């Protein structure tokens, strides 16, 4: 197994495992926000804004994984080939 192959495999694993957590977290956030909006429709504006910001925060974990896997594919992998 060459190092480049290893980099490709690890990149796939990174993005696969790394998107599980944010996906679950975003689902919970959206569910909680929907419930809150159903209970208090007056506060829908505030809840939506907070929801967007929290989703962006949660999502950045997945973005880091994307970045790491891209670095592995395009920077680290070619380094050893």
């Amino acid at each position, binding site marked *: 197994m060459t190092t480049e192959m290893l980099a490709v495999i690890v990149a796939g694993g990174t993005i696969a495992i790394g998107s599980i957590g944010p996906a679950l977290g975003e689902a919970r956030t959206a569910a909680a926000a929907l419930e809150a909006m159903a209970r208090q429709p007056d506060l829908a*504006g*505030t809840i939506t*804004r907070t929801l*967007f*910001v929290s989703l*962006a925060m949660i*999502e*950045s974990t997945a*973005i*880091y994984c*994307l*970045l790491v896997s*891209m*670095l592995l*594919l*395009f*920077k680290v992998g070619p380094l050893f080939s």
Partner: protein
Amino acid sequence: MANSGVMTSPLENVELFRVGPVPVTQIIVVTWGVMAVVVVFAALVRLKLRKKSPGRAQQVVEAMLNWLGEEIRGIIGRDPWPFVPLVASLFIFILASNLVAFISSFFEVVKPPTADISTTAALASVVFLAVPFYGIAMTGTLNYLKTYVRPVWIILPFNIISDLSRTLALAVRLFGNILSGEILFGVLLSLVPFFLPLPLMFLALITGTIQAYIFAVLATVYIGGAVRVVEKHETEEKTK
């Protein structure tokens, strides 16, 4: 058109020509194009500025700025107009840059400037510098520095790390979101070139708008954290 996204590294830039020792990449050209469009539009609206019977463009711009102002008021809880110029500039520039992704689905050469880490890092640095600027201008140097030792002094290193890491996160978030859209589009285009990429183009429009909004809101939240300190005891989070 076919060899998109996957084969060539999306982290590299295509160098078009050189001005002296400075290489001019395609990102720079597109960024200047976006800037030119935004500035020309703003200048045209400014030229036709009227108090009575405002034109169509003026009404759109006014509506957008008022909406942004209300958003900022909701987050910071004080007069939003000192913050609107910066936040609105960031919002409009990022929105325009992200919408270039729509053009990039027709012309491969035109990549959105926000799909490059340099652009987003520069934008995040603006926010990073704006936080102490607004904090010092509105609450004074001492009060601003006190935010770093609040609630206890031992939190100081964590506050400094948080300042740096949130700037990094701001840059990487925008970059990653736009770039992932581009890569997804490139992969799909090389697999199924007809009709199927169409929904993704609209998805890119939505993502671009939401990301511009998120960047503006996060910039406001960070600035708000620096300027809200003084009257924290009076209003006590009433507006939030």
